[in-house]
């Protein structure tokens, strides 16, 4: 066969893709380039359009408008069986009437590949399940089925491998193990992986690049560290880990930094880490970046005074505090239990400080709770 299923190679490009169901826009004018060979994650809550996007790439859903390219080949209108794309489905979708061997051989046989047996055995070795070749899918555990679904897809060496919440049905321990294995297999086979998930930890562990999706659009795209350290929107700040967002105004400048007034207390924020559009701003700080100090002890960097400990939860490696500030907001603080300082107790008066480089600035009109109410464990 000389169709695109074998010949097309290169970056995946989505150009202004939209998908509407009646009045509902599942995907809204989305553009994206996924470089060849990368591990890319589409991360977002249920109903954000990530699975619809994946299904459009696979050809199982037709975009209302826009185009999809693999390298120079336009695959927008192409039938799913002509695309250089294979999918690992959410519930694996293994063929129950075929053996594991025949499940994996399915794609090879349809394309008329010669050495089916060699290829299947090789990929069974890769996922470390060669002894299960003659079993039926229902005789396998969830983790085994997951690996077979992966094997069935990668044996075809597609230009693009799509993974739709592939670890969603596994228990936590197995999920962690499979995260590491998937990452390793991706490096081993060198294929482009596009991974859809609502689990931020999963996306951060595996992906080189993450696109955070919300309401059919991409909120922000970048490396896991970029997204975590310098989120552009409240949604990203809250959906990826936890954030303290404090309302304030930009009251002045000091070289490369803004001076931000937070309820009368001045802190510093690097200009290139501010995504505010005017003087109204949210100053964002991750809970583990904060330090707590007793009144009268010296501290440096950005300082907020007048807090008192509202709640203490000791969780071994760290202690989590809720600190109530004079303006009524409770800030979350994670302190590593590594400095020999006696834990603070409830009601104590404290100051909070952090290194100015950790501050990020968000548009002051945003909803500070965006992305924090969604339950990341909920399935689509």
């Amino acid at each position, binding site marked *: 066969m000389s169709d695109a*299923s074998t010949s097309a190679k290169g970056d995946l490009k989505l150009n202004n893709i939209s998908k509407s169901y009646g009045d509902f826009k599942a995907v809204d004018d989305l553009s994206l380039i996924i470089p060849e060979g990368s591990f890319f994650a589409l991360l977002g809550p249920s109903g954000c359009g990530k699975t619809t996007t994946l299904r459009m790439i*696979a*050809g*199982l859903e037709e975009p209302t408008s826009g185009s999809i390219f693999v390298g120079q080949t336009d695959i927008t209108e192409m*039938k*799913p*069986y*002509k695309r250089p*794309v*294979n*999918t690992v*489905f*959410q*519930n694996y*979708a*293994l*063929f*129950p*009437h075929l*053996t594991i061997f025949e499940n994996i051989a*399915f*794609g090879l046989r*349809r*394309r008329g590949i010669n050495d089916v047996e060699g290829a299947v055995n090789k990929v069974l070795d890769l996922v470390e399940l060669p002894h299960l070749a*003659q*079993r*039926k899918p*229902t*005789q396998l555990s969830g983790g085994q089925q997951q690996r077979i679904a992966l094997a*069935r*897809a990668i044996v*075809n060496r597609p230009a693009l491998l799509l993974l739709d919440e592939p670890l969603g049905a596994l228990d936590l321990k197995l999920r962690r193990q499979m995260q590491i294995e998937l990452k390793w297999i991706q490096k081993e086979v060198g294929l482009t992986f596009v991974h859809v998930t609502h689990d931020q930890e999963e996306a951060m562990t595996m992906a080189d690049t993450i696109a955070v999706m919300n309401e059919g659009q991409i909120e922000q795209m970048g490396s896991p560290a970029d997204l975590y350290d310098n989120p552009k929107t409240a949604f990203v700040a809250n959906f990826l880990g936890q954030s303290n967002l404090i309302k304030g105004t930009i009251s002045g400048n000091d070289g490369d930094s803004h001076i931000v007034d937070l309820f009368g207390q001045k802190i510093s924020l690097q200009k290139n880490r501010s995504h505010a559009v005017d003087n109204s701003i949210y100053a964002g700080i991750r809970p583990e970046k904060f330090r707590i100090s007793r009144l009268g002890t010296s501290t440096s960097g950005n300082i907020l005074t007048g807090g008192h400990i509202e709640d203490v939860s000791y969780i071994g490696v760290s202690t989590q505090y809720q600190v109530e500030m004079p303006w009524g907001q409770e800030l979350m603080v994670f302190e590593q239990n590594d400095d020999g300082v006696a834990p603070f107790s409830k009601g104590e008066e404290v100051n909070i400080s952090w290194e100015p480089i950790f501050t990020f600035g968000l548009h002051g009109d945003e909803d500070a709770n965006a992305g924090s109410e969604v339950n990341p464990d909920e399935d689509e």
Partner: protein
Amino acid sequence: MKKALRWISKNLIKIYAFLGFTYLFIPIIYTFVFSFNKYVRSNLVWKSFTLENWKNPCKPIDICSALGNSIKIGLLATAGATLLGTLIAFALARYAFKGRGFVNTLIFLPMATPELVLGASLLTMFLNLGFNPGFWTIVIAHVMFCISFVVVTVKARIASLDPRLEQAAMDLYANEHETFRRVTLPLVAPGIAGGALLAFSLSFDDFIITNFNSGTTMTFPLYVYTHEKGGLPAQANVIGFSMFFLALLIVIAGQIVGRKRKVSA
């Protein structure tokens, strides 16, 4: 007394089951036993034991040609009803078209209509169209009422099919035709087989509709009915019980195959 009561309450379900099965099987046991009766004219009174009836099941005139007709009609009706019914089931389960709900209701109609009405109106139709009632009018009538049962059985099977399996096949380079042949059809096959078995047994069994549309053709149920008054030969019991036994074997075989499919490769 207390002990006895406790025993009864403990084994109530077993007692129920025993009584239920007895009720269901007494007629069959009766049929079986009387197939060994050395009957004179009529097989209503037990005379003595003989294997003669089992050795010469075709001895009464016409009994085996009636059986042959029933089997031929059954096979033809099954083939027709299964083919058409499966196609209808796919159309109803997979495609949204104008009037789908109406067709769905129509499919149930032959099951709900009294056979007497169906039989009489079919005869009227055949006569109006100038068909002579006989073998082929029976086949057509049987296809007609068997289709509904096939449609319902196959449709249920299609509904339980995970659409992602077909999507996975398409994703793995199978075009529409290959997807149907390699994934859809094998997975729906048990439903089709079930529908076909149901169609055959309904056709083989049918008396009322057949009686209207048979002309001079004799089927096995018609034979039994017409000979009931003049003395039914015990060979009818032999054939009847054999058909029951055959059906039992098919069901058991089906269960074994089904279990094998699930448990091991």
